[in-house]
């Protein structure tokens, strides 16, 4: 029951992150949607799989993968945003009506 809740939570994050990366108008907003999808969705899905599996060989390796993803996802997101900011990509603004 709790495992199914966590898996459902992760799939919700994945689904809305995908909708955000299709619909958003700018690099930085798309990066925000992608970062949520990476961090929260993956970790919630793996936590649900660990609870469903119980404690054995598989769940220990999933814990190692969770630790690695929590370490590297913010670094890669920051690297993309920093390179886009150094090349002077303007953030998106709503056009004013004259």
């Amino acid at each position: 029951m709790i495992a199914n809740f966590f898996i459902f939570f992760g799939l919700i994050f994945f689904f809305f992150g995908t909708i955000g990366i299709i619909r958003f108008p700018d690099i930085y907003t798309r990066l925000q949607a992608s970062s949520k999808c990476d961090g929260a969705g993956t970790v919630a899905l793996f936590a649900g799989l660990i609870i469903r599996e119980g404690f054995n060989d598989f769940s220990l390796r999933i814990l190692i993968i969770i630790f690695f993803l929590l370490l590297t996802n913010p670094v890669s997101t920051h690297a993309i945003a920093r390179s886009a900011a150094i090349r002077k990509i303007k953030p998106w603004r709503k056009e004013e009506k004259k």
Partner: protein
Amino acid sequence: MNLITVVISILAVTALLTLYRVIVGPTAWDRLIAVNLISSKVVSIMVASALLFKRSIYMDVALVYAVIGFVSTVAISKYLEREGRKDK
């Protein structure tokens, strides 16, 4: 119909939807963001299929794939930051 089969199918469908941004993305950073997201989804699919088929070697493949995705994302973003030049 197992639960893990449903999880794998939903993740595959969202990865295919993300491929839209790779194809029509206006700049290189949009394509980089979408490729990073697809690599994260492939890691999730590999972990779920390791639990589905009871093969523990898929988990090692998922870990190595996560390492390669992280290194390639950082390398390509550093490349785009220097505009392809070697100095600085």
